[in-house]
């Protein structure tokens, strides 16, 4: 005889199934993508991500672009299963373009946030089964409020605004603490640092994440592999070139010996 008064048990006896699972997944074989970060600096928002994709212990790919430009004013950075994340980015990109072209006006920033949230909700079953978990950061320029903003999501689609910074992916616990330290006790709050300093912070943060998280790729100077970094300002999204990252890394990021 089962335990009396167990409401959950009762529900189950009534045929209730909690959380519809997808097909059982073998987690270790799934490709996942890893450290992404976004923070506010003096000119707007910086979004950056490493380039490694892993499946279990295996490095699948070292040139993944996890910081995806969705339109001229918004960027989605992805952590989780790339197949699902790229599909989401593709749907968003087309949704925003289609809205702009049919309605002859931009979708509002709130509308864009909601669109991503809806996709994540649709994906809950796959996320819980482990085959499609994605925890993205969405950053963009809110024309209505005249400010660049950062939002992050959990795998179920809950949306949170980041006042100063947001991180996601397996390497994020490492840099979350650093970001807090920098912002609170650094020379100046992150939101006031100029563009170049913001870039230096981003490169150092991702290098630190790679130090402690095997699933995060740092900088591979021999192969010329640098993280992807984008700035969002009033003018829209701007990608930092590899040559700029290289020269900055050589002159400013590493401590002089």
């Amino acid at each position, binding site marked *: 005889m089962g335990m009396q008064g167990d409401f959950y048990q009762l529900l189950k006896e009534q045929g209730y199934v909690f959380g519809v699972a997808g097909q059982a997944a073998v987690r270790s074989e799934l490709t996942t993508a890893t450290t992404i970060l976004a923070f506010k600096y003096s000119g707007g928002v910086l979004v950056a991500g490493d380039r490694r994709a892993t499946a279990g212990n295996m490095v699948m790919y070292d040139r993944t672009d996890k910081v995806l430009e969705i339109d*001229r004013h918004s960027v989605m950075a992805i952590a989780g299963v790339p197949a699902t994340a790229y599909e989401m980015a*593709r*749907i968003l990109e*087309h949704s925003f*373009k*289609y809205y*702009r*072209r*049919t309605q*002859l006006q931009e979708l509002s920033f709130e509308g864009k946030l909601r669109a991503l949230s809806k996709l994540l909700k649709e994906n809950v079953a796959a996320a819980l089964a482990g085959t499609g978990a994605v925890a993205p950061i969405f950053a963009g320029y809110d024309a209505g409020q005249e400010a660049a903003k950062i939002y992050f999501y959990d795998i179920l689609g809950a949306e949170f605004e980041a006042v100063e910074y947001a991180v996601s992916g397996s390497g994020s616990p490492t840099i979350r603490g650093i970001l807090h330290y920098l912002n609170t006790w650094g020379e100046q709050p992150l939101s006031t640092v100029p563009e170049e300093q913001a870039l230096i912070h981003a490169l150092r943060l991702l290098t630190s994440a790679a130090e402690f998280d095997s699933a995060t790729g740092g900088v591979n100077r021999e192969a010329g592999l640098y993280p992807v970094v984008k700035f969002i300002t009033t003018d829209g999204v701007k990608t930092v070139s590899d040559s700029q990252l290289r020269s900055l890394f050589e002159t400013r990021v590493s401590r002089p010996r």
Partner: protein
Amino acid sequence: MYEEPYRWVEAVGNRRQYLDDQFKEGTPVVGVSYESGILLITMNRGTPKLYEIYDRLALGGMGHPADLEKLRFNLLEMAHVEGFNRSASDVTGSRLVKYGIAPVIKQAFEEVFKAPFIVKILLAELGQKSGKDGFLTVNYDGTFEENSRYAVLAATSAVEEEMIGYLRQQSVVSLKDAMDVAIRTWAIGDRAQRSVQEGREDHGDAQKDPDRPVTDTATLDAHLHRCIADKTIECALLDRHAQVPSKYRVLNTDELRTMLPQDLRSSLT
């Protein structure tokens, strides 16, 4: 009453006459390809006539705004579904027109119990390289034409021929050239349409001097001065050098002021 074939032919003939009448007061649309893109130009009294369809596709239209809207949505749906399911490179003007809207327009035109589309369409497609641009024009009966360097829409085919005649003689390299040529081609079209209309209404004769369209710059610019006073210039580019996937861009008044022929700049408010 349309069961007999000759009745049907007669009904289609009436419909053609009816439609020709609807475009009499329409505004011409001109598309010109230049080295680094395509320029589209027209004038309107409030309702826009130029639209973005896809990353490298732009639409210009003449006719009833509600019909144009319906076809514009058709094009947008087809383009975006195709672009998502396949790729942006698979969205081509030719397929959108030949398998998409042209059959729909033709069917509506020939179904004499239903209303036809009161619309003429110009679809401009930006190529990857200079010289690879394309234009498709669709008439109200669903017939379409393809061109590579330029295309026009006007009230009648006679007016369109006058405009094309002028365009054929021009050489266009820069955006500035394209602007000069396009706006003057528009003026030729608009003048021709008005002279047909005034001729009919005031004197009963079709055209005063049909064989020799006026192409001298001073006359055309004087006409443009008058038009700019009561209409708005609408101008859009498909810019090959744009750093984003969507190449369509509307030119604002400040940009127009710097690009229009010198004599016309003062008329812009």
